């Protein structure tokens, strides 16, 4: 802790900004966090946490194959992400095995395939950075790709914001009034795959699911309005990213893990002190002042 004693808060924040890689990491991670946080509201309300886990792990072989072939890794990840979901649906329909079991076995299968491919395809793929993220070592082409995918997801989610909310809330009504539920289902899956791809740069494949569910879960405890939930989810995701990166810089910790831990702590805070749904209900504590 002697490190902290001679640091002022000001230099705690500004010193890292003198490094080019830190500025880039902070910007990129905030962008990724915003995208994942936006999507997170839908995934938590739809109950797709496990699906998020499945898709994010299943993109692994896609990333490896794309690297080996010199294609944009987002393309490979996207194909395998959506492919895994299609396969889950197919096996579920054609066998008597329960859905959560199918999800578990499909995504671990894909993930294992990815690990085997990494060991077989001798290339410059850094397994560690895929598994645990490398926001501090992000390349220029990755930056462009991340910005492009992030904007695409944000635009899609913004256009279909209300339809997706209806789809999560009451798909039967959506279908009854002629809204294309099939399209919305695959739109949400597509966004999930794309978000997993950009998220894995920040925190890696193993932890990207946290980016996709924790901010939404935190926001869900704090509000009863969907729009507020989205805003809180995005903000808490961005704040966690910033905290995680700063903490990892100063204390020399794994960046991806730090970001997710920050998210977890924010969730725990909401879990304990959320005004209406927290264990201690802050509202009650402050009721005396009215």
């Amino acid at each position, binding site marked *: 802790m002697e490190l902290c004693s001679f640091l002022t808060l000001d230099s705690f924040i500004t010193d890292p900004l003198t490094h080019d890689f830190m500025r880039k990491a902070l910007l990129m991670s905030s962008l990724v966090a915003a995208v994942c946080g936006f999507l997170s509201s839908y995934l938590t309300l739809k109950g797709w946490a496990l699906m998020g886990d499945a898709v994010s792990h299943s993109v692994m072989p896609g990333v490896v194959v794309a690297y080996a072939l010199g294609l944009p890794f987002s393309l490979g990840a996207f194909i395998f992400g959506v492919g895994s979901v299609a396969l889950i649906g197919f096996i579920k329909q054609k066998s008597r095995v329960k859905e959560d079991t199918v999800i578990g076995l499909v995504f671990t299968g894909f993930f294992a395939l990815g690990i085997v491919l990494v060991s077989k395809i001798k290339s410059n793929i850094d397994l560690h950075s895929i598994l645990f993220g490398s926001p501090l070592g992000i390349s220029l082409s990755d930056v462009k790709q991340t910005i492009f995918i992030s904007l695409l997801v944000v635009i899609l989610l913004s256009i279909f914001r209300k339809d997706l909310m209806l789809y999560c809330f009451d798909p039967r009504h959506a279908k009854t*009034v002629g809204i294309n539920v099939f399209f919305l289902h695959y739109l949400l899956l597509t966004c999930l795959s794309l978000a997993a791809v950009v998220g894995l740069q920040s925190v890696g494949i193993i932890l990207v699911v946290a980016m996709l569910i924790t901010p939404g879960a935190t926001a869900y405890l704090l509000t009863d*309005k969907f729009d507020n939930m989205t805003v809180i989810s995005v903000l808490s995701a961005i704040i966690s990213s910033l905290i995680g990166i700063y903490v990892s810089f100063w204390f020399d910790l794994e960046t991806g893990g730090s970001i997710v831990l920050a998210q977890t702590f924010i969730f725990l805070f909401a879990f304990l002190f959320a005004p209406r749904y927290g264990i201690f209900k802050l509202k009650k504590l402050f009721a005396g002042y009215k």
Partner: protein
Amino acid sequence: METINYQNFRIEAENICVDYNGKVALYDANLRLQPGQICGLVGMNGAGKTTFFNALTGFVNISKGKIRINGESVRSAQKDQTIAYVPQNEGIDSQFPISVWDVVMMGRYGSMNIFRCPRESDVQAVKDAIERVDLTDHLSTPIGNLSGGQRKRTFLARAIAQRASILLLDEPFSGVDIRTEKLISELFIQFKNAGKTILLSTHDMIHVREFCDLVLLINKTVVAYGETSEVFTPENITTTFGGISPDFLFGPES
């Protein structure tokens, strides 16, 4: 009695079958309903009531048979917002962060542009609908904070805002208070007079006698269908419920 021609039917289901991955949920079911008719859908759990609704709304595909809504396909009925579905209270996530106003506004989505921006007419329709179910004091209340009856009224308001000519109601009277029950029955009379067609599923035999002109008894297929006074007999009910005596269901006086 007026002559019945094909165009006069609001709902016409002919020999419809629905199966889920080879498991038959409903077979050879027929139903014809005209404007202004209220029909009760009665059967055990798992008898295919919800499946019947799902087939009419197009939420599941029928594997055989034909459905016509106002003489047209289910697909065009969806486009025209012809059918409104009022779910069972258990069928929705009451913890979803959404207000009464937003739920009712969803009734207008089908006729809005792609961004679902409410027009003046949509706002007015939602206001009117909420007023008709007596929830004006709860416009911005999250549905999680409503009572069972108030939640039921919220979804009724959504159906009203949708201006549908056919209403499908899944257990409209289960878990509601007396006030809501009275309000629903008043609305039924208004709907009937406005020429709307109502198909409602219920467990409660008294409600069938009270509200339904027609009754459709089902157990995977149609057991009996017709005027309530003719078809709703102890024998038919016993058959529908797999041999349970109607005394047990009604109490001894019937």
